[in-house]
């Protein structure tokens, strides 16, 4: 494979200080040699004109993005507009709806999932963690559609599929289905509110971890239960993680109760989670208190953002634009100065930012995967605050292009 030079790439170089305060970010124009999917050289000198080249036109290079919580198997995205129906019985309104809706959506499930993946690519993502309904209504059919859709994109992104018992692991008797899902393409065991949905915290958690151990996979559990109930569930989840020897392989999604903790109680909870290296995903909701992302980050809990929905029967809102989501995160926590803004990027890159706290370039380095994006901004902080458009995306050295061009034309 011949090497490719991506020329005129803007890389962050360091912070600019005024009176010991960070007031800006300095950048430099570099040229990157890409070989075998990796960054082989970073040079200030332009390559020979006979080399294979791609001009980045001084756009800013950033690590590509990860959506760590989405449901690509049940979306209206790509189909006709549909609002939500008014809620009459909380979450159970939506579960009831799924009995009719899921079979109706099934024939177009894979197509919609693919359109959603395309939306993610347009917005600079190279990793998607999707939850996928596994329930008595739809069985493993949504999983099949999800696996088929993602397989088509294996050359441009990585992914995880969480076997998600949306209607309750115990409540809907989905234990065997989840086991089957783990043999059919799911890579993580899911769960939802062991208390409110399953009505048996211990049995629910026990079963989730048992299935995970059987298949040597991690877990990612939806936990919306608030306050002390949510906190108790986190603690038990940490206990089970420890017992199963699964440190670093368990994720709390939503973790709404974390928003109800503060001060000592939050510090104690963070210590419990940190010990088991449990990470957290959040959608940065604006209609309820958002979990304290910056505090969790300071305590060393990895936090990742996800869109959850782009438009479905749960919510008509959603954009798939993670840079926008990071902007909302920054706005929510009043992170308005250069350093804070630039640091927010890590919540969508698995922790990577071009500069470390001391302002030294830690990304990209020679030897790193050439998985990255070019955005129209002069620095990370500007990209986040002003919602920079993603100009191009690279996965392991290859420029990512849409696979659906023809189909999209036919559909429109």
């Amino acid at each position, binding site marked *: 494979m011949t090497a490719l030079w991506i020329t005129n790439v803007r890389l962050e170089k360091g912070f600019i200080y005024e009176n010991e*305060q960070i*007031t*800006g970010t300095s950048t430099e124009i570099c040229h990157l040699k890409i070989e075998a999917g990796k960054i082989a050289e970073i040079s200030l000198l332009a390559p020979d004109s006979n080399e294979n080249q791609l001009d980045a036109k001084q756009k800013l290079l950033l690590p590509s993005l990860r959506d760590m919580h989405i449901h690509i198997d049940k979306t209206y995205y790509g189909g*006709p*507009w549909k*609002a*939500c*129906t*008014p809620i009459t019985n909380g979450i159970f309104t939506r579960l009831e709806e799924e009995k009719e809706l899921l079979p109706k959506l099934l024939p177009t499930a894979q197509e919609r999932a693919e359109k959603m993946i395309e939306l993610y690519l347009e917005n600079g993502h190279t990793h998607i963690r999707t939850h996928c309904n596994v329930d008595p209504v739809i069985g493993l059919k949504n999983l099949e559609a999800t696996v088929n859709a993602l397989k088509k994109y294996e050359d441009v992104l990585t992914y995880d599929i969480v076997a998600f018992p949306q209607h309750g692991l115990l409540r809907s008797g989905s234990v065997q289905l989840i086991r089957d899902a783990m043999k059919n393409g799911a890579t993580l065991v899911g769960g939802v509110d062991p208390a409110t949905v399953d009505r048996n915290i211990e049995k629910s958690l026990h079963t989730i971890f048992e299935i995970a151990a059987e298949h040597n996979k991690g877990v990612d559990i939806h936990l919306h239960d608030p306050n002390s109930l949510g906190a108790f569930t986190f603690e038990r989840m940490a206990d089970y993680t420890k017992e199963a020897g699964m440190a670093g392989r368990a994720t709390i999604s939503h973790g709404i109760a974390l928003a109800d903790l503060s001060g000592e109680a939050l510090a104690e909870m963070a210590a419990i989670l940190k010990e088991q290296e449990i990470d957290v995903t959040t959608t940065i909701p*604006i*209609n309820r208190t958002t979990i304290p992302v910056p505090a969790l980050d300071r305590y060393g809990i990895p936090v990742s953002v996800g869109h959850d929905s782009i*438009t479905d029967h749960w*919510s*008509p*809102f959603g*954009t798939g634009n993670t840079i926008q989501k990071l*902007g*909302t995160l*920054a*706005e*929510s926590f*009043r992170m*308005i*100065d*250069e350093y*804070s*803004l630039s640091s927010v990027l890590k919540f969508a890159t698995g922790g990577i930012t071009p500069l470390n706290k001391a302002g030294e370039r830690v990304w990209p380095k020679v030897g790193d995967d050439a998985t990255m994006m070019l955005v129209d*901004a*002069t*620095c990370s*902080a*500007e990209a986040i*605050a*002003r*919602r920079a458009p993603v100009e191009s995306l690279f996965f392991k050295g290859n420029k990512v292009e849409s696979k659906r061009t023809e189909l999209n034309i036919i559909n429109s």
Partner: protein
Amino acid sequence: MPKSHWLTNIKLETGYLKDEKGVYTTKTELFHLKIEDGKVIEKQSSGYEISKNENTVDGRGFLALPSFKEMHNHLDKTYLSLDWKACRPVKNLEERLRYEAMELEELAPTARQRASKMIELLLSKGSTHIRTHVNIDPYIGLKNLEGVREALEDYSDKLTFEIVAFPQHGLLREHVIPLMKEAMRSGASIVGGLDPAGIDRNIEKSLYEVMNLSTEFDADIDIHLHDGGHVGLYTIDKFAEMIEEAKWHNRAAVSHAFCLGEVPVPQAEEMAERLNELGMSVMSTIPITKSLPPIELLDRKGVNIYLGCDGFYDSWGPFGTGDLLEKVTRYGELYRKSDEISLAQSLKWATGGPVPLNKDGEMSWPLEGEEANLVLVDASCSAEAVARTPKREAVIFRGKVVAGQLT
């Protein structure tokens, strides 16, 4: 543009449909609108044959929405058109104000250029009316007012505007009242004010001077009120009392009004009734870091609510898009408006009132005789537009395409 023309093939909402389960969808049909002297003078269904010698502009089947009103901005403060700059970390409001003061002179020479960029942005997102506040303070005097006024005048064939003389650094400081008077003679049309308690430290005198200025210049009023809780509520109460005394009905607005979301509901309701009696308005920027004034409660009581983007890309805030429709999307998300009619009716916050269908599903826009101010989007209905924030394909002001394109 010829004197009259037809805007053809635009999608208008014609009613709500209810299915057997009580779920609503929106009906639409294609129409042709005849526009003359900037007004809609005739509305015909798409089957109507337009005579060959009339001029036409093809609306390409896009959905038409009433254009938007940006009711709270600070055109003088934005960094737009200059290099990127984040906000300085500061300890408190005092330091933020000091930092702004330091920067004002540096920014003054580019006021017209920066304001123009903001106007372009707002226009491209569908606003054809802008109410901007402009600093009138001891540091900058009238310099920013001049630049902003010139910029707005440059666009006077594309939008309407109002300028509020805004005493950002306090009204009761030395020299400010004479400056405010000068501003009112130099292009400002509305008297502004700011936190009579928090900034001016004299609620009654601050409001009294605002009233004085407004009666002297026969001008409307729009005061910034960030003061929270009961001190904010008392300020609005006192303001209302003065409005009543001066018989300044339908001429006063309170911007931000976080306090209304911070007091017990019965008190907020009582105040809402009072605001309604006096025809006072509330302007909100739909913040996610402050308490929101209770928009639904105020609306139920008949108070006029308008939205704005506030100043952005400036020393106060690095976030923003200039998109009123996105503000409504955010409103919908905040208040969990997710069904067809709730989403569709929320559009009124962006338009300052008009919506294509009223709550009963009757066509209430566009009507013959109204100004032809429209935003065209690729969406199936208003509800979709509110939820999905589609791109603005074209913005039409008084019959003329002023942003985007239709060809």
